[in-house]
Structure formats: structure tokens, C-alpha cells
């Protein structure tokens, strides 16, 4: 019996060690919640806001930066203006686009029409792209969202922004969400992920640099300022940053309770 108990204790200790290490030995990263269809109010959106939306999608829901980054998994997209006209004339191009805008839309939904040399699927001799159709599957960008990404790519790639803001698109998912109240979120980090704040704002080394770094925002700004900055982002623009970059409709998207959770969190970043 003594041996039996010793073995049981040893087993429990081993399992306890593995569980303890997994809980306390490594950082507990809260994965982002499953993406939700955003309700886009395109009617009042300026082109700058539309481009900013495209950038948010590029860095967030579109998951583009998983591969289009400095690690070299996929081509960088900063030279679209120069590269696209050459690609359209390339004999390997199999699409039907006539200009940059059409090419970009095409490349987002049919990535294999042109594969940049060296970036094709292994064994396909650069005839098949590893990139998925962003309008389907797990990414599932809507037509308006694809247009926003194209606007951002044109803008950041040095091309003229020719894409127009769609006005008459029936956004899929609107029906489902209309009148349907979601539950308030109490975790500030989940809120940051939900509203994709980190696409533009950096906190402790994580996030984009389109907006001000918030790592120590609580040390310099009071709660009233933070509240106003969320609800009316153009009221005061931080030095070195442009107006109209942050969505102006946060007040319609965020619950009062959530706003206070977020303000508390930001005020605590010192």
C-alpha cells in the first residue's frame, strides 16, 4: 500500500508540475475572440477614414501581416505603383485586370493569377499562391472591406487612390446584428482586441505606430482626456499624428460600462 501511495503521489506531483508550469511559467496570452462582422457606416466616411479602415483590416481581420512582413514570407506591398503595371504585362499573369485597382481586387480574391517569383507554393513552380481568398474562409472580408484594403494598398503603395467608397452594399451580417445586443466586455485587453486598437496604438512593444504609443499614457493624461479621446478622437490631435485616422463612431460602438473599463485601464498605464 505504501508503494501504491508513493506512486500516486509521484504521479500527482508530476501532473501538478506540468500544470503549474503551464499556468505560471509562461505568459498567459488571451487569444483574440473570434472575429465579428463589423457594421460599416460607409455613408459618412471620408476617404482618409476609409483608408484607415483598410489599414485596420490589413493589420487585423485580414491577417495580411502574418505573411506580408519583414520576415520575407510574402512580398512586401510598398511598391505597388511601380510593380503592378509590370505584372500586368508579364506573360505569367493569367488574370483579366486592366489597372491597379482591378489587379489589387483580383489578387485579393484570386491570388494565383500572378505569383511573385519565389513566393509560390512549394512544387508549383510559382503558379499557385499560398495566399487564401480573403473574401472566403476564415478571413471572410466583405466586398466593402476588400475595397477598403485596396484603398489602403493604393495609398501606401504610392499609387493614386481610385477605389470609391461603396455606398449601396448590403453588408452581410447586418441583419444578424441589428437589434441584437451583445454582452458587455469587462476585460480591457479583450476590448482593445475587439476594437482593434492595437492595429494603430502600441502598448508595451505590441501594436502599430499609426496612432500614439499608449504604453505610458496614464502618466501624462487624465481620465477626462482619455474618455474624450476615445469618443471624439479629433478633438485634440497628438503632436506628430494626423486627424481623421481614428474611427469617430466609437461612441456608437462601445458601451458606457466598457468605456469606463477602457479608461481605467489606460489611466493605469504609467
Amino acid at each position, binding site marked *: 500500500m505504501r508503494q*501504491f501511495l508513493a506512486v500516486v503521489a509521484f*504521479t500527482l506531483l*508530476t501532473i501538478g508540475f506540468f500544470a503549474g*508550469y*503551464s*499556468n505560471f511559467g509562461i505568459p498567459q496570452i488571451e487569444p483574440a475572440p473570434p472575429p465579428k462582422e463589423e457594421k460599416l457606416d460607409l455613408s459618412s466616411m471620408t476617404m482618409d477614414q476609409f483608408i484607415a479602415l483598410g489599414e485596420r483590416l490589413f493589420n487585423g481581420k485580414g491577417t495580411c501581416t*502574418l505573411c506580408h512582413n519583414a*520576415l520575407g514570407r510574402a512580398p512586401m506591398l510598398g511598391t505597388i505603383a511601380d510593380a503592378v503595371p509590370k505584372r500586368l504585362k508579364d506573360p505569367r499573369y493569367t488574370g483579366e485586370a486592366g489597372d491597379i485597382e482591378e489587379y489589387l481586387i483580383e489578387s485579393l480574391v484570386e491570388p494565383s493569377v500572378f505569383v511573385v517569383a519565389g513566393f509560390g507554393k512549394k512544387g508549383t513552380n510559382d503558379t499557385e499562391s499560398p495566399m487564401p481568398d480573403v473574401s*472566403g474562409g476564415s478571413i471572410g472580408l466583405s466586398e466593402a472591406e476588400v475595397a477598403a484594403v485596396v484603398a489602403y494598398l493604393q495609398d501606401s503603395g504610392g499609387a493614386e487612390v481610385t477605389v470609391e467608397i461603396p455606398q449601396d452594399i448590403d453588408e452581410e451580417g447586418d441583419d444578424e446584428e441589428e437589434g441584437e445586443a451583445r454582452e458587455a466586455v469587462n476585460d480591457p485587453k479583450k476590448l482593445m482586441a475587439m476594437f482593434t486598437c492595437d492595429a494603430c496604438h502600441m502598448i508595451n512593444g505590441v501594436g502599430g505606430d499609426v496612432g500614439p504609443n499608449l504604453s505610458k499614457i496614464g502618466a501624462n493624461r487624465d481620465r477626462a482626456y482619455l474618455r474624450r479621446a476615445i469618443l471624439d478622437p479629433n478633438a485634440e490631435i497628438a503632436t506628430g499624428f494626423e486627424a481623421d485616422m481614428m474611427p469617430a463612431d466609437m461612441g456608437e460602438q462601445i458601451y458606457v460600462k466598457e468605456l469606463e473599463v477602457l479608461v481605467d485601464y489606460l489611466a493605469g498605464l504609467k
Partner: protein
Amino acid sequence: MKTGTRLAIFGLFVALVTLTLAGFDQFGVFAAESESAVDAAASTGYGPAPKLTPDDYPTIAGVNSRVAVWVFAQLHLWFAAFVLAVPIFVFIIEAIGMRTRDKRYDDMAYEFIKVTITAYSLTAILGGLLIFALILFYPHLITYLSTIFKESMFYYALLFFAESAVLYIYYYGWHWLQGGFKKWVHLTLGLMLNAVGTTLMLLANAWLTFMMSPAGVDAAGVFSGDAWAAIHNFLWNPINIHRFVANIAFGGSIVGAYAAFKFLTATAEKERAHYDWMGYNANFIAICALLPLPFAGYYLAAEIYAYSQQMGITLMGGIFAWLFIIQAVLIGTLFLSANYYLWCGMGRSDGAKRYTKYIKYIAIVLVGAFLVWFTPHTLVLTNEELKSLGGPHHTILGPLGIMPAKNTAVNLMILFTALSFMFYRRANKIATVSWVKAGNAVQVALYSAGIVNIMFLGIYHGYFTNTVYKVAASIPQVLTTLVIMVVSITLDSFIYRGAKEVGPLRWGRIPARAQYALFLLAVSFTWLMGLMGYIRSGIRQHWHVLDIMRDASPDAFTPTLGYAANVVSVAAIIFMAMVIFVFWIAQVGSNKTLPAGYWKE
């Protein structure tokens, strides 16, 4: 659990699947939502994958649906892995016994299969619980899957009759089918048992890999009617290979734990010697399967990446990246405990002293390799730490977090474990061939050149190439390791042909603490399987069937690693408790009580 009860459970299972399929047709739960889906549905007769809402997931008060399914699935998988693996090596051990005419092998094979007989019933019960939980909590998912896999699910259930029949004849007929032609009949039954068991595993693997890499369906999930295409999906074979190898390692480790416990509780020397020998063989089986397992895992990961770059990045570079640090702790534990057991086992021979001086160097390499594998790619740092480090990665140590370093580490771990085993095999022998010195020199040169090559490939690709070429080191490194192992084992067999024995091996002369290495191996393997099961399923994220059928349940979010580890730990404790029951019941059958005066004379 009697045969009748087991048959009843499976009869119920077949009935449930049949009813579910009937329900699918009757109520038409899948509404076609796009024109193409309608067209496809019209041409194939199948509907698209349903788009669900949270209301489509029935709940039971006080029960977390996902955790319930998770735990039942994991427990079923552990037992299934055990009962599928043991007959594989029982068959091999029985064949060795037939060839060598050494009855000890036959007795050991019988004892292994005896241990698993109760586990079969538990596997069936847990499989029943799993299918009940799926039907109760995820009815639309199981309906959709059973529409596509109706034939394979039906025949899967029927195959259990064949499995049960062959198993019972194999087990209960062990002492009856002895000698001459009868023994061949018995061995053939063992082969049939393995064939049926492996077929069962392949079918079940098809269903789960379909959820990861769906095939035979269009983008809306409309089934083409080609069942083979759905079964033979992109990740089916990589999972088949990985599970086949892992099951053997896992099964070996569990029977090793059984032998270890019996050794510790044995009172007679002869009994201790028997269970020491049994534990050694179980550990040998576990190590033999453990060595190729990282390669099978690497192949699986590469195929996941090839199927979906996004899923591959989620696996290796996303939130699951930290899971591989936990995995490093477990793999390190597995290798260290397996090696420690071998080193302790060298005490069985008086000739082992010649090799004990090398053990400390092997231990240093194993720990060093473990630390490299343990190094995370991205560190979680404060701003101050980031500034002082000059970025999120250390200049020198940063590349230790990426694949070339991990591959180097695991190849060295495998090679040095093979070296440990070589020393163990040599411990009780004295070579008599004239060219022994030259042979040993070749062995040293072979290992040295191989280690240099593996290190060079790792350092070159880790430090001097850009990201997309960094994984290129893996295949030449693996080939180097395999070549060294094959050549060195072959060479050693020639060197020690006709060798003298130092003395008889003293089975039973091993410290009790070595038995705890076997327990550690079994517990670590169990826990590791649970953890890797979580990641395999978790990389689908919020999809029941990747990109086709979305999970709309409240539990569609990916849990943190700590949460997953807690679920795995609770499940592992339940599994271990059940395994203890299985071991206990295996020996109850041989206990006899003679109650004096109870029965009429």
C-alpha cells in the same frame, strides 16, 4: 464489462448514428444560402454546411459542453491509443518468442495483452460517451459529419464486432493455441487484430482530419458524394503516421509503468527479475518509437503549413508558439527519463563500468539540447528590458528560439539517446573480432562527423540565412541522424558478432528509483498527448470544419494555455485512475480465496 454490454453500447451507437442521419434528411436543417450552393446542392443531393447561431447548441445546466466533449474525446483517445498499440508489439514479441523458442517472450506478450483486455471495454464506454456528448451538445456538427462519412461511420461501428471477436479469441485462446500449427493460427489472429485495429484508427483519423483540411466538399461545404476524397484529405496520412508511431511509444510507456509497479511491489527475487525484464522491454519499445516521433511530428507540421499557411503560422508563430515551450519541457522529461532508466539498467551488468564515465557527458548534452529547445522565440519584456536588450531578441541567444536551433537540439537528443542505448547493449559484452579498434574508431568518426554536420547546418541556417530558408536545415539534419543510427547499429552488430559475455545479466539488480523514471515516462507521455491534442484541435480556432462550418457556440474562443493545461491535467488524472483500475483488475483474476467451511463438502 462483459461482451454483451459492449455489444449493447455499440448497437446503441449504430442506432444513434442511423437516427441522426435520418433526422438530417427529414428535417432538412441545412438551408442553401447562395446560388452556387443551391446549384451544387441540386446536383449532388447534399446541402451546404449549416450556418449556426448560439441557439443551435443545446446546453445542460452545470455542464460546459466543450469541456465535456474535450475530456471524453481525450480519455477515449488515450485508451484507444493504448489498446491499438499494445497488440502491435504483442504480435512482434510473440513472433520473437516463436523464433527463439524462448517462452519468456510468450509469457510477456500474454501479460501485456492481459493488461489491455479491460482497457478495451473502457475504450468502448468512453467512445460511447463521446458520441453521446457530440449528439447532445453539437448536433448540427455531428449531423453534417455523419452525412459525409455515413458509410465509414457505419462500417466503423460494425468493425468493432470483428475487433472484439478477434481479440477475445486471441486472448482466451492464448494457452489453447500453443505449439506447431496452432501457434501459427494464434499469430495470424494477432495480425488480424492489428489489421482491424489499424483500420479503425484510420477511419476515425479521416473524420478529424476532414475538420482540419476538408476535401470532397466545395467552399460552401456541399458534399460531392465522393467519400474517398473526404477520407483521403490532405492531412489524413500525416496524422496517420504520427499517431501510429506515437501510439506505440505511448503503449510502451504505459506497460512500462505497469511493470515498474509490479517490480516495486514484488516480494520474490524471481518476480522482481521478471518485471525488471518486462520494464526494460517496455522502455525499449517506447524509446524505439520515441526516436522517430519528432520526425513524424515535423512532417505533420510541415504538411499543415503546406495545406494552409495561415494555419501553419497560427501553429508555430501565433498564440500557440508558447505551447511548444511547454512541449520542450515534456520532451526533455521524456528523453531524460528514458536515458536515466537505461543508465540505471547498466547496473545489471558487471561490465558496465567501462562506459559509466561517458554518461555524464551524455547528460550534459541532453540538458544543453533541452535548454535550447526550451528557449522561446519571442520574449515578453517590459519597455526597459526591450531597450537594454536592443529589441525583442537577444543578438546571440535569439536564434536559439527558432527552428534551426530546435532541430539541432532534437537531433542531438536523439543521437545521444541512441548512444546511451549503444553503451547499454555493449555493457555486458566483450568484442572478439580482430578489428575491434578500427571498428570503434569508425564509430567515433561517424558520430563526430555527424554531430559536426548537424551543428554546422543549424548554425549556418540559424544565423546566416533569412527567414524563408531557415527550415532548410531540417531535412539534411534528419538524414544525418538516421544515417548515423542505421550505420552505427549495423557496424556494432558486426563488431559484437560472436562476442563474449562479461557475465549473466542480473535482472532485478536495478534501483527502485529507476522505476520512477518509467512512471515519469508514462505520465509525461500521457500529458504530452493531451497537450498536443489541444493544439491539433485548437489551430482550427473558431471553425468546426476549417473555413466551411463556423463554430458559433459560446465556447468558440481559443482558451489560454493555462486553461488548456488544467483541462488536460484533470483528464490525465482521471485516465491514470482508470489505468490503475485496469492494472488492478488484471491481477484480480489470478487471486484465489479458499474460504474454509463456506461451501458444503
